């Protein structure tokens, strides 16, 4: 069972992403912000789904920090956010994000994206 790390400061979003992915057969672990995620990512994690606007460390900072570690250079990360600014999307893309989803997400499309990126 592949493990997905869901990072969002909203417990409802973490729950909704978690339910959608667990119904599709994934194991889900949660982090409440970027800093929490950095402490939880390990070799068993297959993919990250990350909010952008979060306290302590936002999603883009977390992504940029993550990529400085050689172990997580290619770990798939998809940003899931209410933001839709092209500048932010471009920044995430440059930092090595594999996708960008604007909330509210469609559960089946999210699951399809995860299936594709973890295949």
């Amino acid at each position: 069972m592949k493990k997905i790390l869901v990072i969002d400061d909203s417990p409802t979003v973490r729950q909704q992403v978690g339910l959608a992915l667990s119904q599709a057969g994934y194991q889900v672990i949660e982090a409440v912000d970027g800093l929490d995620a950095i402490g939880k990512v390990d070799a068993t994690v297959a993919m990250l789904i990350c909010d952008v606007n979060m306290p302590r460390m936002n999603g883009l900072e977390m992504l940029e920090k993550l990529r400085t570690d050689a172990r997580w250079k290619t770990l798939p990360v998809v940003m899931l956010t209410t933001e839709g600014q092209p500048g932010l999307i471009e920044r995430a893309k440059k930092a090595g994000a594999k996708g960008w989803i604007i909330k509210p997400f469609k559960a089946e499309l999210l699951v399809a994206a995860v299936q594709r990126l973890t295949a």
Partner: protein
Amino acid sequence: MAKTMLDRLRRTRERVIARVRQVNQTTETDVLAAGRHVQRVVEVAHRHIARLREVLAGPVGNEDSDLGRAIRSQSEHVRQHTSSVGKVVAEHASQVAAVAESVRSITAAARDIERLNAAARVLSINARIEASRSSGSAVFSTIASEMQQLSKAIAGANKTVYDLAATMEKTVPQLLRHSQHLAQVVEGYAHEARDRIEAVDRRVAELRSEVGNVLADSDNALAEVVSESHAALSKMQFQDVCAQSLLQIDGWIADVSHQLAADFGVRGDIPPVAHTTVGNDDVEVNRREAGEVMLF
């Protein structure tokens, strides 16, 4: 004047933030509870369908099930048994027919013996005539006497053979009829057994097909439950989206406050925004397109 406006804006922001937190807390609790309900529905559906699959696919739906194997084994046993009984009965009938033929041969042989005996009697009479012609020749007289005794003995033995053959000729056809009747009964039973086995096989195939249909329907129902659950999960995000929007309003009022303070050159008590955002641009997202996945 500017300071008063800044105070009013600050108090407005405080009220907005307090209201947002209050509403957010309430709706968040409700949304989380709804999410748990959705999950429970999916889990119950999953469990019931798994149980249904276990119950249905176990005894009938699966060819390797105990019941499936027992039915096949019993059918095969009956097929082999009726086939071997049929062969034995047919062999028996054939042997009885051979016996009937042998009895007819014995009767024919007895008739031949009778004819030969009649010839021996003629020879005995001739010997007696020769004995009287040759004035009581001892030799002819002895031959005539011996042949007469021999002829009587042969006639006696032949009568026994005749009687036995006659008895057998009466009995063997009865035996043959019984044998043929038995063969018919066995053949009828074999046909009936085959029909019943075929009926059982057909019913098992129908059941397996019905089970397959029920399981396929169940899988479709489960897929529908999961799909509905996904739709519900998608819609339940209203709380987070609303909260984000309200917190954005706080950010905009904070911006206005800073502009006012700068324009009028006053230092106001402007609290930081409740929810910091990475981007400051006010980009309106087309919500109809929200949820679409951009993969890089």
